[in-house]
Protein backbone atom coordinates (compact mmCIF):
# COMPACT_ATOMS: atom_id res chain seq x y z
CA UNK A 1 0.00 0.00 0.00
CA UNK A 2 1.34 3.42 -0.92
CA UNK A 3 0.58 6.36 1.29
CA UNK A 4 2.27 9.56 0.21
CA UNK A 5 3.20 11.39 3.37
CA UNK A 6 2.09 14.73 1.98
CA UNK A 7 -1.13 13.57 0.34
CA UNK A 8 -4.31 13.66 2.41
CA UNK A 9 -7.16 11.21 1.93
CA UNK A 10 -9.71 13.69 3.31
CA UNK A 11 -9.79 17.34 4.35
CA UNK A 12 -7.78 17.89 7.52
CA UNK A 13 -9.70 18.52 10.75
CA UNK A 14 -9.13 21.61 12.85
CA UNK A 15 -6.87 19.60 15.15
CA UNK A 16 -4.87 18.35 12.22
CA UNK A 17 -4.44 21.85 10.85
CA UNK A 18 -2.90 22.74 14.23
CA UNK A 19 -3.35 26.48 14.17
CA UNK A 20 -2.00 26.83 17.72
CA UNK A 21 1.56 27.17 18.82
CA UNK A 22 3.11 23.88 19.88
CA UNK A 23 3.21 23.29 23.62
CA UNK A 24 6.23 21.07 23.21
CA UNK A 25 8.84 21.84 20.64
CA UNK A 26 11.82 19.55 20.19
CA UNK A 27 14.47 20.24 17.56
CA UNK A 28 17.39 18.00 16.58
CA UNK A 29 17.34 16.46 20.07
CA UNK A 30 20.33 14.34 20.98
CA UNK A 31 20.59 12.37 24.22
CA UNK A 32 23.49 10.23 25.47
CA UNK A 33 23.97 8.76 28.92
CA UNK A 34 27.36 9.26 30.55
CA UNK A 35 29.35 9.83 27.38
CA UNK A 36 27.95 6.66 25.79
CA UNK A 37 26.42 6.32 22.33
CA UNK A 38 23.49 8.53 21.32
CA UNK A 39 20.20 7.09 22.52
CA UNK A 40 18.29 9.82 20.71
CA UNK A 41 19.79 11.23 17.55
CA UNK A 42 18.26 14.29 15.93
CA UNK A 43 14.62 13.96 16.97
CA UNK A 44 12.17 16.71 15.94
CA UNK A 45 8.78 16.79 17.59
CA UNK A 46 5.94 19.28 18.13
CA UNK A 47 3.00 18.59 20.41
CA UNK A 48 -0.10 20.75 20.05
CA UNK A 49 -2.94 21.31 22.54
CA UNK A 50 -5.71 18.75 22.25
CA UNK A 51 -3.85 16.05 20.33
CA UNK A 52 -2.93 12.55 21.36
CA UNK A 53 0.33 11.44 19.81
CA UNK A 54 1.37 7.81 19.87
CA UNK A 55 5.06 7.04 20.08
CA UNK A 56 5.95 3.73 18.46
CA UNK A 57 9.21 1.84 18.40
CA UNK A 58 10.88 -1.38 19.47
CA UNK A 59 12.39 -1.79 22.91
CA UNK A 60 15.52 0.36 23.09
CA UNK A 61 14.38 2.65 20.29
CA UNK A 62 14.47 5.68 22.59
CA UNK A 63 10.78 6.14 23.41
CA UNK A 64 11.26 6.26 27.18
CA UNK A 65 14.38 8.41 26.82
CA UNK A 66 12.45 10.93 24.72
CA UNK A 67 9.84 11.15 27.48
CA UNK A 68 12.49 11.41 30.18
CA UNK A 69 14.26 14.17 28.29
CA UNK A 70 11.04 16.22 28.37
CA UNK A 71 11.05 16.19 32.17
CA UNK A 72 14.75 16.54 32.86
CA UNK A 73 15.28 12.87 33.78
CA UNK A 74 17.56 12.31 30.77
CA UNK A 75 20.55 14.50 29.91
CA UNK A 76 20.17 16.53 26.71
CA UNK A 77 23.44 16.38 24.77
CA UNK A 78 22.42 18.50 21.80
CA UNK A 79 19.56 20.29 20.10
CA UNK A 80 16.73 22.01 21.93
CA UNK A 81 13.61 21.06 23.85
CA UNK A 82 10.95 23.50 25.00
CA UNK A 83 8.06 22.44 27.21
CA UNK A 84 5.34 24.96 28.05
CA UNK A 85 7.65 27.93 27.72
CA UNK A 86 10.59 26.36 29.55
CA UNK A 87 13.81 25.83 27.64
CA UNK A 88 15.01 22.51 29.05
CA UNK A 89 18.57 23.13 27.92
CA UNK A 90 18.76 26.36 29.87
CA UNK A 91 16.79 26.02 33.08
CA UNK A 92 17.36 28.39 35.97
CA UNK A 93 17.69 27.14 39.56
CA UNK A 94 14.40 25.68 40.79
CA UNK A 95 12.77 25.62 37.37
CA UNK A 96 13.19 21.88 36.92
CA UNK A 97 10.64 21.25 39.68
CA UNK A 98 8.26 23.68 37.95
CA UNK A 99 8.68 21.83 34.65
CA UNK A 100 8.02 18.49 36.31
CA UNK A 101 5.02 19.88 38.15
CA UNK A 102 3.54 21.00 34.83
CA UNK A 103 3.96 17.60 33.16
CA UNK A 104 1.69 14.76 34.27
CA UNK A 105 3.28 11.35 33.93
CA UNK A 106 1.66 7.95 33.67
CA UNK A 107 3.90 4.91 34.07
CA UNK A 108 3.73 1.30 32.94
CA UNK A 109 3.79 -0.02 36.52
CA UNK A 110 1.47 2.75 37.77
CA UNK A 111 4.04 3.75 40.46
CA UNK A 112 1.43 4.21 43.17
CA UNK A 113 2.26 3.86 46.85
CA UNK A 114 0.35 0.64 47.48
CA UNK A 115 -0.19 1.15 51.20
CA UNK A 116 -1.60 4.66 50.82
CA UNK A 117 -5.26 5.18 50.01
CA UNK A 118 -6.39 5.85 46.46
CA UNK A 119 -7.33 9.40 47.52
CA UNK A 120 -3.89 10.12 49.04
CA UNK A 121 -2.20 8.79 45.92
CA UNK A 122 -4.21 11.21 43.80
CA UNK A 123 -3.49 14.04 46.25
CA UNK A 124 0.26 13.53 45.83
CA UNK A 125 -0.21 15.03 42.38
CA UNK A 126 -0.72 18.36 44.16
CA UNK A 127 2.45 18.16 46.26
CA UNK A 128 4.02 21.05 44.39
CA UNK A 129 1.10 23.24 45.50
CA UNK A 130 1.06 21.99 49.09
CA UNK A 131 1.80 24.47 51.83
CA UNK A 132 3.41 24.01 55.27
CA UNK A 133 0.33 22.17 56.58
CA UNK A 134 1.47 19.33 54.37
CA UNK A 135 4.31 18.69 56.84
CA UNK A 136 1.86 16.88 59.11
CA UNK A 137 0.29 15.05 56.22
CA UNK A 138 -2.74 17.21 55.50
CA UNK A 139 -4.05 18.50 52.21
CA UNK A 140 -6.56 21.35 51.96
CA UNK A 141 -10.27 20.74 51.54
CA UNK A 142 -10.05 22.25 48.05
CA UNK A 143 -7.40 19.71 47.13
CA UNK A 144 -9.47 16.87 48.52
CA UNK A 145 -12.59 18.01 46.63
CA UNK A 146 -10.64 18.23 43.42
CA UNK A 147 -9.07 14.80 43.94
CA UNK A 148 -12.51 13.25 44.51
CA UNK A 149 -13.86 14.98 41.40
CA UNK A 150 -11.00 13.52 39.40
CA UNK A 151 -11.69 10.09 40.86
CA UNK A 152 -15.32 10.56 39.77
CA UNK A 153 -14.07 11.39 36.30
CA UNK A 154 -11.94 8.25 36.03
CA UNK A 155 -14.78 6.20 37.53
CA UNK A 156 -13.31 4.95 40.80
CA UNK A 157 -14.40 7.46 43.44
CA UNK A 158 -16.08 4.59 45.30
CA UNK A 159 -12.60 3.14 45.95
CA UNK A 160 -11.20 6.41 47.37
CA UNK A 161 -10.56 5.05 50.87
CA UNK A 162 -9.11 1.72 49.83
CA UNK A 163 -5.37 1.09 49.66
CA UNK A 164 -4.12 1.44 46.11
CA UNK A 165 -2.62 -2.06 46.13
CA UNK A 166 -6.10 -3.59 46.48
CA UNK A 167 -7.15 -2.31 43.04
CA UNK A 168 -6.88 -4.11 39.70
CA UNK A 169 -4.22 -3.02 37.20
CA UNK A 170 -6.69 -1.03 35.11
CA UNK A 171 -8.06 0.70 38.19
CA UNK A 172 -4.56 1.52 39.43
CA UNK A 173 -3.72 3.07 36.07
CA UNK A 174 -6.86 5.20 36.35
CA UNK A 175 -5.68 6.38 39.76
CA UNK A 176 -2.32 7.23 38.19
CA UNK A 177 -4.12 9.24 35.49
CA UNK A 178 -6.13 11.06 38.16
CA UNK A 179 -2.85 11.81 39.96
CA UNK A 180 -1.43 13.25 36.75
CA UNK A 181 -4.55 15.42 36.28
CA UNK A 182 -4.25 16.58 39.89
CA UNK A 183 -1.09 18.39 38.79
CA UNK A 184 -3.17 20.58 36.44
CA UNK A 185 -0.70 19.52 33.74
CA UNK A 186 0.09 21.33 30.53
CA UNK A 187 1.21 18.04 29.02
CA UNK A 188 0.73 14.36 29.83
CA UNK A 189 3.41 11.77 29.11
CA UNK A 190 2.29 8.16 29.29
CA UNK A 191 5.15 5.68 29.03
CA UNK A 192 3.67 2.34 27.93
CA UNK A 193 0.64 2.84 30.14
CA UNK A 194 -1.15 -0.29 28.91
CA UNK A 195 1.77 -2.72 28.71
CA UNK A 196 0.66 -4.41 31.95
CA UNK A 197 -3.05 -4.46 31.12
CA UNK A 198 -5.35 -6.82 29.25
CA UNK A 199 -6.79 -5.67 25.87
CA UNK A 200 -10.11 -4.49 27.31
CA UNK A 201 -8.45 -2.49 30.06
CA UNK A 202 -5.92 -1.16 27.54
CA UNK A 203 -8.65 0.23 25.32
CA UNK A 204 -10.45 1.75 28.27
CA UNK A 205 -7.30 3.50 29.55
CA UNK A 206 -6.38 4.80 26.09
CA UNK A 207 -9.93 6.05 25.52
CA UNK A 208 -9.67 7.92 28.81
CA UNK A 209 -6.35 9.51 27.83
CA UNK A 210 -7.73 10.43 24.39
CA UNK A 211 -10.79 12.03 25.99
CA UNK A 212 -8.54 14.05 28.30
CA UNK A 213 -6.52 15.30 25.33
CA UNK A 214 -9.67 16.20 23.40
CA UNK A 215 -11.80 17.67 26.20
CA UNK A 216 -9.13 19.40 28.28
CA UNK A 217 -6.90 20.45 25.41
CA UNK A 218 -3.92 18.79 27.07
CA UNK A 219 -1.50 17.18 24.62
CA UNK A 220 -0.87 13.54 25.45
CA UNK A 221 2.24 11.73 24.27
CA UNK A 222 1.76 8.01 24.75
CA UNK A 223 4.31 5.33 23.97
CA UNK A 224 2.83 2.04 22.84
CA UNK A 225 3.98 -1.34 21.63
CA UNK A 226 0.72 -2.46 20.08
CA UNK A 227 0.30 -0.90 16.64
CA UNK A 228 -3.50 -1.39 16.29
CA UNK A 229 -3.99 0.45 19.59
CA UNK A 230 -1.89 3.33 18.29
CA UNK A 231 -3.87 3.46 15.05
CA UNK A 232 -7.15 3.37 16.94
CA UNK A 233 -6.40 5.83 19.72
CA UNK A 234 -4.15 8.58 18.42
CA UNK A 235 -4.33 11.67 16.25
CA UNK A 236 -0.74 11.40 15.17
CA UNK A 237 1.96 8.75 15.23
CA UNK A 238 5.67 9.23 15.73
CA UNK A 239 7.92 6.25 15.06
CA UNK A 240 11.41 5.84 16.47
CA UNK A 241 14.10 3.30 15.67
CA UNK A 242 17.61 3.28 17.14
CA UNK A 243 16.97 6.78 18.50
CA UNK A 244 16.04 8.28 15.16
CA UNK A 245 12.62 9.49 14.11
CA UNK A 246 11.46 7.55 11.06
CA UNK A 247 7.78 8.43 10.95
CA UNK A 248 5.76 11.45 11.99
CA UNK A 249 2.37 11.73 10.35
CA UNK A 250 -1.35 12.04 11.14
CA UNK A 251 -2.78 8.65 12.06
CA UNK A 252 -5.38 9.00 9.30
CA UNK A 253 -2.56 8.80 6.74
CA UNK A 254 -0.96 5.68 8.17
CA UNK A 255 -1.72 2.00 8.41
CA UNK A 256 0.03 -1.04 9.85
CA UNK A 257 2.06 -1.63 6.69
CA UNK A 258 3.28 1.96 6.68
CA UNK A 259 4.44 1.58 10.27
CA UNK A 260 6.35 -1.65 9.67
CA UNK A 261 9.44 0.43 9.04
CA UNK A 262 9.59 1.19 12.75
CA UNK A 263 9.74 -2.47 13.73
CA UNK A 264 11.65 -3.73 10.69
CA UNK A 265 14.49 -6.15 11.49
CA UNK A 266 17.91 -4.78 10.81
CA UNK A 267 18.59 -7.32 8.06
CA UNK A 268 15.44 -6.25 6.21
CA UNK A 269 16.15 -2.56 6.37
CA UNK A 270 15.80 -0.38 3.34
CA UNK A 271 13.51 -2.76 1.52
CA UNK A 272 9.94 -2.27 0.44
CA UNK A 273 8.16 -0.59 3.26
CA UNK A 274 9.98 2.69 3.11
CA UNK A 275 9.29 2.93 -0.60
CA UNK A 276 5.61 2.52 0.10
CA UNK A 277 5.71 5.65 2.20
CA UNK A 278 7.64 7.81 -0.20
Amino acid sequence: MTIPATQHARPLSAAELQPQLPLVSVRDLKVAYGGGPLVLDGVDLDLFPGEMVALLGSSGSGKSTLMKSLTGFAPISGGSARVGGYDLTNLRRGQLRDVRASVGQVFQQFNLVGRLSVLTNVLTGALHEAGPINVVGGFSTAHRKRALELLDRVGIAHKAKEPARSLSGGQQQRVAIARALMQRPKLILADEPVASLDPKMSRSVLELLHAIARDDGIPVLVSLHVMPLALEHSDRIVGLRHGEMLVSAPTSQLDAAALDVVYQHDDEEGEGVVDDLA
Partner: protein
Amino acid sequence: MSTTSPDRAGRKAPPPPQLDPRERERLERAFNVPRARFLLGIPVVALLLVWSFVGAEFNFAKLGEGAVNMGEFLSRLFPPTWDKFDTIVALLIETLQMAIVGTVLGAVLSLVVAFGAASNIAPKWLYYPTRWVMNIIRSLPDLVFALMFVSAVGLGPFAGILAMTIGSIGSIGKIFAEAMEAVDVGPVTAMQAVGASKRQVVQYGILPQSAPMLVSYTLLLFEGNVRGATILGMVGAGGIGLELTTAMKMYDYGHLSAIVICIIVLVTVIDQASAVIRRRIT
Protein backbone atom coordinates in the same frame (compact mmCIF):
# COMPACT_ATOMS: atom_id res chain seq x y z
CA MET B 1 4.68 17.97 10.61
CA SER B 2 4.28 14.96 8.37
CA THR B 3 7.47 13.09 7.61
CA THR B 4 9.03 9.72 7.09
CA SER B 5 12.75 9.14 6.76
CA PRO B 6 13.74 6.48 4.24
CA ASP B 7 17.45 7.39 4.48
CA ARG B 8 17.53 6.76 8.19
CA ALA B 9 15.48 3.59 7.76
CA GLY B 10 18.14 2.15 5.47
CA ARG B 11 20.98 2.61 7.93
CA LYS B 12 22.42 -0.61 9.41
CA ALA B 13 22.40 -0.96 13.18
CA PRO B 14 25.48 -2.34 14.95
CA PRO B 15 25.40 -6.15 15.32
CA PRO B 16 23.94 -7.35 18.60
CA PRO B 17 26.47 -8.55 21.22
CA GLN B 18 27.14 -12.30 21.10
CA LEU B 19 27.61 -14.81 23.93
CA ASP B 20 31.17 -16.11 24.12
CA PRO B 21 31.13 -19.62 22.45
CA ARG B 22 33.10 -21.20 25.34
CA GLU B 23 30.64 -19.71 27.83
CA ARG B 24 27.76 -20.99 25.69
CA GLU B 25 29.22 -24.51 25.67
CA ARG B 26 29.65 -24.40 29.44
CA LEU B 27 26.06 -23.18 29.98
CA GLU B 28 24.74 -25.97 27.77
CA ARG B 29 26.46 -28.75 29.77
CA ALA B 30 24.17 -30.51 32.28
CA PHE B 31 27.05 -31.02 34.72
CA ASN B 32 29.84 -28.54 35.23
CA VAL B 33 33.02 -28.98 37.21
CA PRO B 34 32.92 -26.20 39.80
CA ARG B 35 35.06 -23.20 39.01
CA ALA B 36 38.62 -23.08 40.36
CA ARG B 37 37.83 -20.22 42.74
CA PHE B 38 35.03 -22.33 44.29
CA LEU B 39 37.31 -25.40 44.65
CA LEU B 40 40.03 -23.25 46.20
CA GLY B 41 37.49 -21.60 48.49
CA ILE B 42 36.42 -24.84 50.21
CA PRO B 43 39.80 -25.63 51.90
CA VAL B 44 40.23 -21.94 52.79
CA VAL B 45 36.84 -21.89 54.58
CA ALA B 46 37.62 -25.25 56.26
CA LEU B 47 40.97 -23.94 57.51
CA LEU B 48 39.35 -20.78 58.81
CA LEU B 49 36.78 -22.86 60.70
CA VAL B 50 39.40 -25.18 62.27
CA TRP B 51 41.54 -22.18 63.21
CA SER B 52 38.53 -20.57 64.93
CA PHE B 53 37.52 -23.78 66.78
CA VAL B 54 41.08 -24.27 68.09
CA GLY B 55 41.53 -20.60 69.00
CA ALA B 56 38.20 -20.53 70.87
CA GLU B 57 39.12 -23.75 72.71
CA PHE B 58 35.94 -25.42 71.52
CA ASN B 59 35.91 -28.90 72.99
CA PHE B 60 33.02 -31.40 72.74
CA ALA B 61 34.71 -33.74 75.26
CA LYS B 62 34.87 -30.97 77.84
CA LEU B 63 31.20 -30.21 77.22
CA GLY B 64 30.36 -33.86 77.90
CA GLU B 65 32.38 -33.84 81.14
CA GLY B 66 30.72 -30.61 82.26
CA ALA B 67 27.20 -31.91 81.61
CA VAL B 68 27.13 -33.41 85.10
CA ASN B 69 27.95 -30.05 86.72
CA MET B 70 25.38 -28.37 84.53
CA GLY B 71 22.74 -30.86 85.59
CA GLU B 72 23.66 -30.28 89.23
CA PHE B 73 23.36 -26.49 88.77
CA LEU B 74 19.96 -26.84 87.12
CA SER B 75 18.73 -29.19 89.85
CA ARG B 76 19.58 -26.53 92.45
CA LEU B 77 17.23 -24.11 90.69
CA PHE B 78 14.25 -26.20 91.70
CA PRO B 79 12.01 -25.65 93.44
CA PRO B 80 11.84 -21.87 92.93
CA THR B 81 11.06 -19.76 95.97
CA TRP B 82 8.41 -17.09 95.58
CA ASP B 83 8.80 -15.24 98.89
CA LYS B 84 10.24 -12.19 97.10
CA PHE B 85 7.70 -12.27 94.29
CA ASP B 86 6.64 -8.65 94.91
CA THR B 87 10.25 -7.48 94.50
CA ILE B 88 10.62 -9.48 91.29
CA VAL B 89 7.42 -8.00 89.83
CA ALA B 90 8.44 -4.45 90.80
CA LEU B 91 11.86 -4.89 89.21
CA LEU B 92 10.38 -6.51 86.11
CA ILE B 93 8.04 -3.53 85.72
CA GLU B 94 11.06 -1.23 86.03
CA THR B 95 12.84 -3.32 83.40
CA LEU B 96 9.82 -3.08 81.11
CA GLN B 97 9.62 0.70 81.64
CA MET B 98 13.31 1.03 80.81
CA ALA B 99 12.78 -1.01 77.65
CA ILE B 100 9.76 1.08 76.59
CA VAL B 101 11.52 4.42 77.08
CA GLY B 102 14.78 3.12 75.59
CA THR B 103 12.96 1.75 72.57
CA VAL B 104 10.93 4.89 71.88
CA LEU B 105 13.92 7.20 72.27
CA GLY B 106 16.15 4.78 70.37
CA ALA B 107 13.68 4.36 67.51
CA VAL B 108 13.11 8.12 67.15
CA LEU B 109 16.83 8.91 67.20
CA SER B 110 17.54 5.95 64.88
CA LEU B 111 14.97 7.24 62.40
CA VAL B 112 16.56 10.68 62.39
CA VAL B 113 20.03 9.18 61.93
CA ALA B 114 18.74 6.74 59.29
CA PHE B 115 17.73 9.65 57.03
CA GLY B 116 21.40 10.56 56.97
CA ALA B 117 22.49 6.97 56.40
CA ALA B 118 20.13 6.08 53.53
CA SER B 119 21.91 6.45 50.20
CA ASN B 120 18.67 7.26 48.35
CA ILE B 121 17.95 10.20 50.69
CA ALA B 122 21.19 11.63 52.06
CA PRO B 123 23.86 13.46 50.08
CA LYS B 124 27.29 11.79 50.00
CA TRP B 125 28.84 14.29 52.44
CA LEU B 126 26.29 13.25 55.06
CA TYR B 127 25.89 9.58 54.14
CA TYR B 128 29.48 8.45 54.80
CA PRO B 129 30.07 10.24 58.14
CA THR B 130 26.70 8.99 59.42
CA ARG B 131 27.55 5.41 58.48
CA TRP B 132 30.97 5.71 60.17
CA VAL B 133 29.42 7.01 63.38
CA MET B 134 26.89 4.16 63.33
CA ASN B 135 29.68 1.63 62.79
CA ILE B 136 31.58 3.00 65.78
CA ILE B 137 28.49 2.85 68.00
CA ARG B 138 27.72 -0.68 66.80
CA SER B 139 31.22 -1.87 67.57
CA LEU B 140 30.81 -1.00 71.27
CA PRO B 141 28.71 -3.33 73.46
CA ASP B 142 25.76 -1.80 75.33
CA LEU B 143 27.53 -2.76 78.58
CA VAL B 144 30.29 -0.26 77.80
CA PHE B 145 27.69 2.48 77.29
CA ALA B 146 26.00 1.38 80.53
CA LEU B 147 29.26 1.66 82.49
CA MET B 148 29.90 5.03 80.89
CA PHE B 149 26.45 6.38 81.79
CA VAL B 150 26.52 4.86 85.30
CA SER B 151 29.68 6.86 85.93
CA ALA B 152 28.02 9.95 84.40
CA VAL B 153 24.52 9.91 85.95
CA GLY B 154 24.95 7.36 88.74
CA LEU B 155 23.43 3.94 89.41
CA GLY B 156 19.83 3.33 88.34
CA PRO B 157 17.54 2.83 85.37
CA PHE B 158 18.31 6.23 83.79
CA ALA B 159 21.82 5.07 82.94
CA GLY B 160 20.36 1.90 81.43
CA ILE B 161 17.90 3.83 79.31
CA LEU B 162 20.67 6.05 77.96
CA ALA B 163 22.79 3.01 77.15
CA MET B 164 19.92 1.32 75.29
CA THR B 165 19.08 4.50 73.40
CA ILE B 166 22.61 5.10 72.15
CA GLY B 167 23.21 1.42 71.46
CA SER B 168 20.11 1.16 69.31
CA ILE B 169 21.27 3.98 67.01
CA GLY B 170 24.10 1.78 65.82
CA SER B 171 22.04 -1.32 65.23
CA ILE B 172 18.48 -0.29 64.44
CA GLY B 173 19.55 2.95 62.74
CA LYS B 174 21.44 0.90 60.16
CA ILE B 175 18.47 -1.42 59.64
CA PHE B 176 16.10 1.56 59.33
CA ALA B 177 18.38 3.10 56.69
CA GLU B 178 18.49 -0.15 54.76
CA ALA B 179 14.69 -0.51 54.93
CA MET B 180 14.40 2.96 53.41
CA GLU B 181 16.93 2.13 50.71
CA ALA B 182 15.00 -1.03 49.79
CA VAL B 183 11.71 0.69 48.87
CA ASP B 184 10.26 0.34 45.39
CA VAL B 185 11.82 3.10 43.32
CA GLY B 186 8.69 3.50 41.12
CA PRO B 187 6.59 5.58 43.54
CA VAL B 188 9.69 7.62 44.40
CA THR B 189 10.15 8.41 40.70
CA ALA B 190 6.47 9.31 40.50
CA MET B 191 6.87 11.76 43.39
CA GLN B 192 9.91 13.36 41.75
CA ALA B 193 7.92 13.52 38.52
CA VAL B 194 5.15 15.58 40.09
CA GLY B 195 7.72 18.12 41.24
CA ALA B 196 7.75 17.08 44.90
CA SER B 197 10.54 18.38 47.14
CA LYS B 198 13.05 16.01 48.76
CA ARG B 199 11.12 16.17 52.03
CA GLN B 200 7.85 15.38 50.23
CA VAL B 201 9.45 12.45 48.40
CA VAL B 202 10.56 11.03 51.75
CA GLN B 203 7.20 11.74 53.39
CA TYR B 204 4.96 10.34 50.66
CA GLY B 205 7.21 8.01 48.68
CA ILE B 206 9.72 6.43 51.06
CA LEU B 207 8.24 6.43 54.57
CA PRO B 208 4.84 4.91 53.68
CA GLN B 209 6.58 2.09 51.85
CA SER B 210 9.11 1.37 54.57
CA ALA B 211 6.69 1.90 57.49
CA PRO B 212 5.85 -1.81 58.02
CA MET B 213 9.55 -2.66 58.18
CA LEU B 214 10.29 0.26 60.50
CA VAL B 215 7.53 -0.78 62.90
CA SER B 216 8.57 -4.41 62.71
CA TYR B 217 12.20 -3.59 63.51
CA THR B 218 11.10 -1.29 66.34
CA LEU B 219 9.21 -4.19 67.89
CA LEU B 220 12.29 -6.38 67.52
CA LEU B 221 14.31 -3.62 69.17
CA PHE B 222 11.80 -3.59 72.03
CA GLU B 223 12.11 -7.37 72.47
CA GLY B 224 15.90 -7.03 72.46
CA ASN B 225 15.77 -4.14 74.92
CA VAL B 226 13.66 -6.14 77.41
CA ARG B 227 16.31 -8.87 77.36
CA GLY B 228 19.11 -6.32 77.27
CA ALA B 229 17.71 -4.43 80.27
CA THR B 230 18.17 -7.51 82.43
CA ILE B 231 21.87 -7.59 81.55
CA LEU B 232 22.42 -3.85 81.99
CA GLY B 233 21.19 -4.20 85.56
CA MET B 234 24.27 -6.30 86.33
CA VAL B 235 26.43 -3.18 86.08
CA GLY B 236 24.02 -1.16 88.18
CA ALA B 237 22.03 0.37 85.35
CA GLY B 238 18.62 -0.47 86.85
CA GLY B 239 16.13 -3.22 86.16
CA ILE B 240 16.07 -6.80 87.35
CA GLY B 241 19.65 -7.58 86.34
CA LEU B 242 21.16 -6.44 89.64
CA GLU B 243 18.75 -8.67 91.60
CA LEU B 244 19.64 -11.57 89.28
CA THR B 245 23.38 -11.08 89.80
CA THR B 246 22.95 -10.72 93.56
CA ALA B 247 20.94 -13.94 93.77
CA MET B 248 23.70 -15.78 91.87
CA LYS B 249 26.45 -14.36 94.08
CA MET B 250 24.50 -15.23 97.24
CA TYR B 251 23.84 -18.79 95.97
CA ASP B 252 20.11 -18.06 96.45
CA TYR B 253 19.12 -20.56 93.75
CA GLY B 254 15.41 -20.67 94.59
CA HIS B 255 15.13 -16.90 94.21
CA LEU B 256 17.32 -17.00 91.09
CA SER B 257 15.00 -19.63 89.61
CA ALA B 258 11.94 -17.49 90.34
CA ILE B 259 13.58 -14.47 88.65
CA VAL B 260 14.52 -16.51 85.58
CA ILE B 261 10.99 -17.95 85.29
CA CYS B 262 9.48 -14.47 85.53
CA ILE B 263 11.88 -13.12 82.88
CA ILE B 264 11.01 -16.03 80.57
CA VAL B 265 7.27 -15.37 81.01
CA LEU B 266 7.68 -11.62 80.36
CA VAL B 267 9.88 -12.09 77.29
CA THR B 268 7.59 -14.80 75.87
CA VAL B 269 4.48 -12.65 76.30
CA ILE B 270 6.21 -9.69 74.64
CA ASP B 271 7.58 -11.85 71.81
CA GLN B 272 4.15 -13.30 71.10
CA ALA B 273 2.42 -9.93 71.24
CA SER B 274 4.94 -8.29 68.94
CA ALA B 275 4.79 -11.26 66.55
CA VAL B 276 1.01 -10.78 66.29
CA ILE B 277 1.45 -7.04 65.64
CA ARG B 278 4.19 -7.66 63.07
CA ARG B 279 2.00 -10.16 61.22
CA ARG B 280 -0.82 -7.64 61.03
CA ILE B 281 1.27 -4.77 59.70
CA THR B 282 3.46 -6.59 57.18
